[in-house]
């Protein structure tokens, strides 16, 4: 065995060890790395009332109500993952991309009455890009996922994070 071979073996062995260690560590910290919990996760894990968590999912079509309270805009809507749904209430200005049928991530806490009070709402965009006329043509031809206001069906084989559930 030449020195080059020995060096290559050492590097490969270190690489294998490091990859295994990283995979184990990432597996162990899975719940911390995950950016948000879905309504189904919350239904399964019952996070304690009052703990700050992030809730992610789709804004259920037809669930958005906008009111004002002491001059501040208040929005209430349902966040769903197709299985469970949670009522969310948010005081403040919603981001540009916030729509019914679009993904959102809300940070806040669950009240005892199972309403999620959000301090911050982020819009989650999907990976699809198309011009307005294409989107309208798709809508007209009925290629729009049922029950969701502004979510086109898959244009391709690539699954979206929500349809995978």
């Amino acid at each position, binding site marked *: 065995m030449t020195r080059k071979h020995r060096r290559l073996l050492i590097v490969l062995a270190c690489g294998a060890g490091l990859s295994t260690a990283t995979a184990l560590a990432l597996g162990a910290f899975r719940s911390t790395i995950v950016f948000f919990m879905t309504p189904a996760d919350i239904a399964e894990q019952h996070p304690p009332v009052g703990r700050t968590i992030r809730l992610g999912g789709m804004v259920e079509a037809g669930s958005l109500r906008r009111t004002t309270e002491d001059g501040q805009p208040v929005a209430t809507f349902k966040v769903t993952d197709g299985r469970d749904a949670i009522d969310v209430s948010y005081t403040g200005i919603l*981001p540009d991309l916030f729509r019914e049928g679009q993904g959102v991530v809300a940070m806040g806490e669950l009240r005892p009455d199972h309403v999620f009070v959000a301090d911050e709402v982020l819009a989650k965009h999907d990976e699809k890009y198309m011009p307005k006329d294409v989107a309208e043509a798709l809508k007209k031809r009925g290629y729009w996922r049922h029950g969701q206001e502004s979510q086109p069906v898959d244009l391709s084989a690539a699954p979206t994070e929500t349809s995978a559930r």
Partner: protein
Amino acid sequence: MDAGTLATTPRSGRGLHRFANPGRFLRLASRVQPFLTWPGLALLLIGLYAGLFIAPPDYQQHDAMRIMYVHVPAAILAETGYWALAAASLVSLVWRHPLADLAAKEIGPVGAGCALLCLASGSLWGKPMWGAWWVWDARLTSVLVLFFLYIGHILVIRAFDDPERGYRAAAILALIGAIDLPIIKYSVVWWNTLHQPASLTLTGSPTIAWPMLWPLLLCIVGASLCFGAVVTARLRAAVMERRIATLLRAQAEQAG
């Protein structure tokens, strides 16, 4: 040993070591250079222009999606650049190839620039679209780690009085850091993140409509060629700098 021949009179070799010969590398690189620089610049400029003025706005993001013509090439090159850096580091560690040492040294700053652009342009997109400049989700965090890996590599490879020790230490750092590359790529698949999954994949058809896609493809190809052109130019300069240093040392020894 093949190391140390870099500055001496070139001699022909076999396989990889043909290109360890600095004279041959310089001639090959100076011939390849114009084919990287000019098509790269042309494609990149056309792509960026088309992205700004010809591509139609997105049905939801409107014009903010134009940021992707900067963001996507920068992200691809930050990641591919690190693959190249890791490959050069492996060759440097195992085969002690002198050109690989210099390649690792010269790729670092260019890749770091791409990673910085990726983070900054992503942030400029995130504010109007998500509603936040920055979130600590798995994708954004792993790309930030990539940027720090580049910075660490740049510092370590220049930190030693004996350059050989710097090359070894930096190569080890680069190879350890390579574990971040699959994490970046699959972060949007393994964990739920705020960042959307990939629109361009090797296996599926793209989820970007054609009128928006072609400028992006031009930008990606153009930016990749430009990346290659910059690294080639830096590497040529580095090889020549090394030869100058050796010649000056030899002259000083003759004189003394």
